[in-house]
């Protein structure tokens, strides 16, 4: 039984003795319970799920031995007319055994019993062991499925690949036309099929697996390879998959054309043509990694495929239909076998390595010349000729008599040569990237994998074949920093797009998806930037350097509850600012109506009152439709001390920094080393990291961000605590722009007549504690401290200069 165990999964090994025990018990003591349990278990449906083909593999040596025993026994005891062949299917044998035995029992059984002699004992024992063997053989069926099944796949059909329906292709069945080189998405792709999907995701249908044979019953190709099965499984598990052929936008045949050498071209084409939705190949996607065949090795799949899209490994510029085909990598099976931990970038032992075997002698000469010229830093490896064990030679490379482990040796090199073979696409590219080695691609006209979206300049060096002898000097001219960047990038490409068949399949579908829904496409940065870069980088939403025209002016938004008198004063003051273009009062009191129209101060600009549904602080930062200017001045209803010059100057400063918060009193956040947390600071400091929004200019887009894109629960938290909305705004703007605030003018405090009365010391203390808590809370929600500290503030050019006051633009810039 030990040899059986070799091909069985460990759980089966463990349960086998128990099962045997059960049978023995059954035979010896008529254990009813055990019998019931067994019979129940054996009659479960999964018992019948083992396909005979499973048991036909020639390398199951133990199995053969078992069969031999059974065959011998049957030939002898069942008086088989001809000796049974052990190659026959096991299950049938077991059945034979039983049937033969039961026939004998029926005929001779009752008569035999009383005349039973000791000499017959051997017969009984043998008979018993047959039953035992039969039961064990049946038992195998029970254990076998358990070792493959995972519990969540109950819904998926379980069959053997050997068992798929066979389709006979008549010799005269139609053949598709050859691929049309002028195909583009808008000519050959039927986009109407993709119109169903509101989520901007294409739907992919996979045809059922079939086995195609010609008129003589000879198979057209291997039914399916491991990789293609993995690929289809990945698609089936993805969001793209649909099992409804009528809703599908893209069709993937299950005819495996990954390797052209394993299939018959004409017959495969016929098989494609008879697919139920083939329709000249429209919206069909074929995956091929090894195109062409000897002697001329075409760079695209030779199977005529009409309008079908081809995801091919090894396209050249002449066969690749830009924007229609997808160039994919040639999967390296080593990726799954070998675990190469990531090695940090930096100088490595060899500068340049060539590890390909089977190179053309001309190339090898060139490489060896490089090695001679540059000595130790170049390593040219070849097949090992003198290795004793042949099986592992694929994982070894040799240089003279030195043996290296492949692909581990790639991690010792900064650059790795990826030369064209007969085919342009080489699986070694994947190994090289995995090792974090920068590929030096020497294959003229090769379309690199996923080149439609991946920026290979960042991860590889492409050298024309005729410059092969200069390769060393070309590589040496690359600065070290760029090399390290490329090493990181190479490894990232492997992790994201080369690592597994699944990664390749999903990237291919994503590319096609992006073509069909271009407005929802993934950006260059998302495809190409490694996670570390994505984390550190800030993309300012207002990146265009632009100084908005002064004529546009700003909209002042006054948040008020019921301090009407003070509000009117603010309105009157603010209306004196030349650049004010509109005034918006946000009436935050639901219990009281705003004063009548006639009572409002008469001002030169439009005044609008907006009533809110709830008394919330966040109402101040709502993107009201009434805001027509880009610049917004948020101002409290008690800020009456700001002079017109001060406000106008604030607006001028905002125009020069439209992507920042421009405010008056500045505040600072500090790290409290004792408490190990952030602290809010309003003392006289030389630095600023926040401005108060009691009066501040900012771009109206930040209102949109505050209302709809504030991370976490900050917005609700602020509304619940009725505090810190300004700190939240400071965090938001700094986080999204990566820039600091601008404090304008010396003003340090908003003093208002109403609030001085309650401005006690103790109140101040609690206020500070609350504000510090806000900072800590927000920093934890943002996951970082986005605030930037600066040491400058903006003053008018001639501020406090010895210059006639009347000639200054902003003479009345106010006090502290």
């Amino acid at each position, binding site marked *: 039984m030990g040899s059986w165990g070799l091909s069985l999964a460990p759980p089966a090994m463990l349960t086998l003795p128990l099962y045997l025990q059960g049978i023995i018990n059954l035979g010896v003591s008529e254990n009813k319970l055990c019998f019931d349990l067994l019979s129940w278990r054996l009659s479960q449906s999964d018992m019948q799920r083992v396909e005979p083909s499973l048991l036909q593999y020639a390398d199951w040596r133990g199995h053969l031995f078992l069969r031999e025993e059974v065959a011998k026994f049957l030939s002898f005891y069942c008086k088989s007319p001809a000796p049974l062949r052990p190659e026959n299917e096991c299950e049938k044998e077991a059945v034979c055994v039983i049937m033969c035995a039961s026939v004998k029992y029926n005929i001779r059984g009752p008569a035999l019993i009383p005349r039973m002699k000791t000499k017959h004992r051997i017969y009984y024992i043998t008979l018993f062991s047959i039953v035992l063997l039969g039961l064990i053989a049946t038992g195998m069926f029970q254990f076998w499925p358990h070792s493959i099944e995972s519990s969540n796949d109950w819904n998926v059909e379980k069959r053997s690949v050997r068992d798929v329906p066979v389709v006979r292709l008549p010799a005269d069945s139609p053949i598709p036309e050859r691929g049309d080189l002028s195909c583009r998405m808008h000519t050959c792709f039927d986009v109407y099929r993709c119109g169903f999907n509101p989520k901007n995701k294409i739907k992919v249908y996979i045809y059922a697996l079939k086995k195609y044979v010609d008129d003589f019953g000879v198979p057209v190709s291997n039914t399916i390879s491991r990789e293609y099965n993995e690929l289809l499984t990945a698609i089936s598990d993805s969001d793209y998959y649909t099992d409804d052929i009528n809703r599908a936008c893209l069709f993937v045949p299950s005819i495996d054309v990954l390797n052209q050498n394993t299939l018959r071209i004409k017959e495969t084409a016929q098989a494609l043509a008879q697919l139920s939705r083939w329709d000249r190949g429209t919206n069909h996607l074929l995956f091929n990694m090894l195109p062409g065949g000897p002697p001329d090795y075409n760079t695209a799949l030779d199977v005529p495929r009409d309008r079908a899209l081809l995801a091919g490994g090894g396209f050249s510029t002449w066969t690749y239909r830009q924007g229609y085909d997808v160039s994919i990598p040639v999967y390296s099976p080593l990726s799954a076998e070998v675990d190469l931990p990531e090695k940090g970038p930096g100088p490595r032992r060899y500068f340049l390595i060539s590890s390909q075997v089977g190179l053309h002698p001309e190339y090898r000469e060139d490489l060896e010349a490089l090695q001679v010229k540059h000595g130790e830093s170049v390593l040219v490896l070849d097949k090992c000729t003198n290795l004793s064990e042949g099986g592992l030679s694929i994982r070894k490379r040799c240089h003279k008599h030195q043996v290296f482990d492949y692909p581990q040796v790639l991690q010792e090199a900064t650059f790795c040569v990826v030369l064209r*073979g007969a085919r342009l696409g080489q699986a070694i590219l994947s190994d090289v990237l995995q090792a974090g080695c920068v590929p030096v691609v020497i294959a003229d006209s090769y379309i690199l994998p996923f080149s439609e979206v991946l920026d290979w300049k960042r991860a590889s060096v492409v050298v024309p074949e005729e410059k092969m002898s200069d390769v060393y000097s070309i590589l040496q001219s690359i600065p070290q920093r760029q090399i390290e960047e490329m090493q990181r990038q190479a490894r990232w490409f492997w992790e994201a797009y080369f690592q597994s068949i699944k990664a390749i399949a999903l990237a291919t579908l994503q590319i096609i998806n992006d073509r069909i829904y271009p407005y929802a*496409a993934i950006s260059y940065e998302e495809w190409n930037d490694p996670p570390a870069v994505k984390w550190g980088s800030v993309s300012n939403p207002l990146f265009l350097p632009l100084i908005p025209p002064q004529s546009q002016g700003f909209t002042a938004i006054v948040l008020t509850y019921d301090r009407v008198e003070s509000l009117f004063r603010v309105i009157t003051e603010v209306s004196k600012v030349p650049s004010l273009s509109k005034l918006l009062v946000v009436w935050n009191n639901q219990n009281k109506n705003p004063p009548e129209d006639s009572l409002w101060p008469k001002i030169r600009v439009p005044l609008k009152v907006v009533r809110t549904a709830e008394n919330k602080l966040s109402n101040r930062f709502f993107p009201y439709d009434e805001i027509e200017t880009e610049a917004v001045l948020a101002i409290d209803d008690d800020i009456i001390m700001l002079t017109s010059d001060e406000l106008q100057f604030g607006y001028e400063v905002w125009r020069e920094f439209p992507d920042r918060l421009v405010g008056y009193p500045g505040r600072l956040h500090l790290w409290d080393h004792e408490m190990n947390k952030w602290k809010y600071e309003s003392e006289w400091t*030389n630095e600023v990291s926040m401005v108060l929004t009691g009066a501040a200019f900012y771009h109206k887009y930040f209102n949109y961000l505050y209302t709809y894109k504030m991370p976490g629960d900050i917005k609700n938290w602020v509304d619940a605590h009725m505090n810190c909305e300004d700190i939240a705004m400071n965090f938001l703007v700094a986080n999204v722009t990566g820039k600091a605030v601008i404090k304008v003018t010396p003003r340090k405090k908003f003093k208002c007549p109403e609030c001085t009365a309650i401005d006690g010391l103790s109140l101040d203390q609690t206020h500070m504690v609350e504000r510090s808590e806000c900072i800590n809370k927000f920093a934890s929600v943002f996951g970082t401290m986005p605030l930037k500290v600066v040491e400058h503030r903006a003053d008018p050019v001639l501020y406090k200069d010895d210059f006639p006051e009347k000639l200054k633009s902003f003479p009345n810039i106010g006090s502290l």
Partner: protein
Amino acid sequence: MQSWRRRKSLWLALSASWLLLVLLGGFSLLRLALPPRPRPGAPQGWPRWLDAELLQSFSQAGELPEDAASPQAPHGGSCNWGACFDTSKCRGDGLKVFVYPASGPISETHHRILASIEGSRFHTFSPAGACLLLLLSLDAQTGECSSMPLQWNRGRNHLVLRLHPAPCPKTFQLGQAMVAEASPTVDSFRPGFDVALPFLPEAHPLRGGAPGQLQQHSPQPGIALLALEEERGGWRTADTGSSACPWDARCEQDPGPGQTQRGETLPNATFCLISGHRPEAASRFLQALQAGCIPVLLSPRWELPFSEVIDWTKAAIVADERLPLQVLAALQEMSPARVLALRQQTQFLWDAYFSSVEKVIHTTLEVIQDRIFGTSAHPSLLWNSPPGALLALSTFSTSPQDFPFYHLQQGSRPEGRFSALIWVGPPGQPPLKLIQAVAGSQHCAQILVLWSNERPLPSSWPETAMPLTVIDGHRKVSDRFFPYSTIRTDAILSLDARSSLSTSEVDFAFVVWQSFPERMVGFLTSSHFWDEAHGGWGYTAERTNEFSMVLTTAAFYHRYYHTLFTHSLPKALRTLADEAPTCVDVLMNFLVAAVTKLPPIKVPYGKQRQEAAPLASGGPGPRPKPQAPAPNCVNQIAAAFGHMPLLSSRLRLDPVLFKDPVSVQRKKYRSLEKP
């Protein structure tokens, strides 16, 4: 009996197990004959094959390595970069371009384009030394067609440049020549070999060019969502609410309240729909780009301009004309963030690559140079974010962190140290006090002295902890901005020997520069103004409420501007600066403003000393008014730039507690306020 009973029970057990086996065996035989049917209702995925583990790999173990190589590269009918361009001629100093002289009378445009290429750093007069031979085929309307030139050599390393679609019949076979033409059709375009140009209108400005129309980042409220191109030019804004697919006559019942804008006016809408298949639609594309109206291209059959390097997904939407409802829904639902980004990108691209003929030609050459450079070409980030690849030279560095423009995107910061570069002009006094003041700064990394006068070098220099390098020799004024390899920091403090600064001032200015590494941060300022009386630009160094230039006799800036000054400015401008030394300041300010599109930054400067010993007297900076040839200089430079890039600022950045009535002890930069 005992044994009999035992035997009986044995028999019973045996028969029971037989029965069991018969049942089981028969049952499983039955199941084999009838393959299990899938359960109804369950989702049908790709089956998990029971024998999946045992499937063979698509590539047999031996196959890949055996895949014997053939020395012949696969080849096809047409050219590609590797096959038809010989880069060996381009070694050394990159792309050198020879332009065939015109054979016969040429138009003014042709003449000026020739002049513009001849003024560029790519140009060479010898066809033998050139790596690219440029054949201009410009004069579309005159009917002049170029004939086969002398050094044709089957078109190898040739670029045929057609700004307008060729009316000429192909008088000679293009052979291996690359073609740069306006909006080539996708079918004839050879990616990576040909260059797609924009479709320029006849009256496109040669140099400078009109800036983008966008005045604000976000769309104005109430602006039309969509503008449609009219058949005879002009744009029509469409009300997208009423009609399902307003551009498709078949489904549009009501022309709606759309407004038609005839003529060459630019559209005023968020999106501009361009559906023409003919390359001429590309001229609309350019119009939309200039107007900041996001182009929505419906299945264009022409290649987008410079698609090899420009990531058009950031500035335009290419959609399928067959899905109008989806496109419209997608436009209506597009997030404000995306709209904002697309709008800004249209403006950046317009300004960086399309606003003038000169920019288009330089971009073409830059694209080809990038192909030659291979790994040292512009990274995609440099092409696709401001200021653009024409202003971010890849010869300076290929790492974005080395430039002053990309720190945010890279998550990096400028270096925390600076190099002081002191120019010692004619009087030739060693600036001992200045060196001491600068060396006192905690941020100073090194001091370089450019000794540029007749006097011999002084034998002794002041003792400082700073490394001090003296570069000797009588130099031109423009050499002040030469990218000396000895400068190792990002920041440069450019000084004149007669400047006087305090350590405090230097420290504060440097801290400010770190916040604005792409701008110039200076102490003394001047401004330009439009002089109605003379019909030209004027220049004043007087103190006013605003300024547009800082004097480089005391200013911080990024060392990249030295490279840009020396390698990208036309030779004529640098000569101008050498001849009129006062111009060098203006020129540098023009350059930085043209790159950043922002004004410089002023920091406070000790007032007393400013009056006692003005920085600007007698040095290479602008002199006091009577002897200043500056206004003329401003006009000359503005003419060479093609536009006025300078912008005015009305603010000064002071330390936070500057001149506040609080204890001096609290202040970090105390000496800034000393009288």
